[in-house]
């Protein structure tokens, strides 16, 4: 039974041009290979590597969009299950991570919307409330927990697509182009969303973010 992985390397365009096949440990395998192994063989080791590689970024993206651990973990779980069960739909034109982040962030936004429907009385996410909740005294240093909540509230005050773009960029580690792919918009639209998101955050976090 074959358990290993072969690798073939082609170097073209520069000297020397060569083909090399080498052994490749599972830990170094690409996301695409791990996904294929999972899809073909239900390879638990491939899943474990894939999960460990991306769980934290996925969690942080979800947490930024939801603000608490339980909901964020739900979003990560649902997102991973979706990509793992629909692995055959993955197209190698994009990175696996881009696909995963798209799914997880959409799940998180859906969970957030459902939660909002249940808690419409909560208005803290509105911009006015956020602005009033941020300390007026400039330069004051907040402790970690408080600062985290301030940041979450400020992010929650952004329009949904701006918030998603910013979180995918900073916490998800996606490029502008990948965010455009995730959101199904042009690169220019992503530029605009990120620009306005930053400007608005600067305003909301006045006192924490120095004026340029």
């Amino acid at each position, binding site marked *: 039974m074959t358990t290993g992985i072969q690798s073939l390397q*082609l170097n073209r365009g520069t000297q020397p*041009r060569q083909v090399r096949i080498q052994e490749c440990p599972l830990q170094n395998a690409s996301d695409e290979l791990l996904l294929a192994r999972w899809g073909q063989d239900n390879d638990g080791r491939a*899943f474990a590597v894939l999960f460990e590689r991306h769980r*934290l970024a996925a969690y942080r993206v979800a947490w930024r969009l939801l603000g608490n651990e339980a909901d964020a973990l739900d979003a990560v779980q649902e997102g991973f*299950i979706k990509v793992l069960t629909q692995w055959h739909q993955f197209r*190698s034109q994009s990175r696996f991570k881009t696909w995963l982040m798209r799914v997880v962030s959409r799940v998180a936004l859906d969970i957030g919307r459902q939660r909002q429907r249940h808690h419409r009385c909560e208005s803290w996410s509105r911009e006015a409330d956020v602005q009033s909740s941020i300390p007026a005294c400039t330069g004051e240093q907040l402790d*970690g927990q408080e600062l985290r909540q301030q940041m979450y509230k400020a992010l929650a005050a952004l329009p949904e697509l701006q918030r998603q773009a910013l979180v995918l960029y900073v*916490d998800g580690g996606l490029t502008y182009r990948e965010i455009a792919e995730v959101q199904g918009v042009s690169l220019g639209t992503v*530029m605009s969303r990120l620009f306005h998101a*930053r400007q608005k955050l600067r305003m909301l976090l006045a006192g924490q973010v120095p004026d340029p």
Partner: protein
Amino acid sequence: MNHDPPIRDACRRAWLAAYAEGQLEGTTREQVEDWLDQHPQLWAEIRAQQALGQTLRQMMDATAPPDPSAATWEALAQRIQFASVQAKHAAAPLPSHCRQRGSARIAAVTVAAALLLGGGVWLQNQLPGPTIDPPQTGQVDPLSPRTAHDDSPSPSPPELTSISRLTLVREVDVLLERVPHMGDGWLPIGRPPLEGPIQWIHQDEIEVIGFASHSPTQQNIPCLVHAEGDRPLLWTPVRE
């Protein structure tokens, strides 16, 4: 002094912000640099956007949520794995050995056998070094990495549709991995994102350096590299 309307000004600043973040490439980057050459005062905006981006990034890093415990991750991983396997089984309409019977399977093997034979002949004419013995099409499934002498239970033969994902990367430094039990399942790794199909590789452009395999059953199996779809790009022989 800026006389542009606000919308245009915001659009321009968004481009400069993207440039400041290093997110522009190619012609768009050159356009912005030309623009900056013509309007050097805009470098102040670049610096301001860089400072803002850096500050916000630092703040977001500092306010990242605490990581869940190892036990939480472990439990989550188990739930995901269990649910995914269940969902995969529930979604499968027919067992794989049923789906892969029929004319499509026969046609696929026939086409692949023809390609194998053609590729082997082509390599024999092109490749210096040891004589190449293409596998006997009557004994070896060309889509399988196994030999006819491999008596272990045969895995489900791969479907050709699974190969359509194997778009190769770019022309330089392509690193491919062989996927066990996927037949000709070569996947590009190491250079994401994938950037379109690789062009035909001529044998005189490459040199086979060596091969390694974890399994003796893979010896003497030619390596098949695919471009898009199921079109073989290159056959290379195994050398001892």
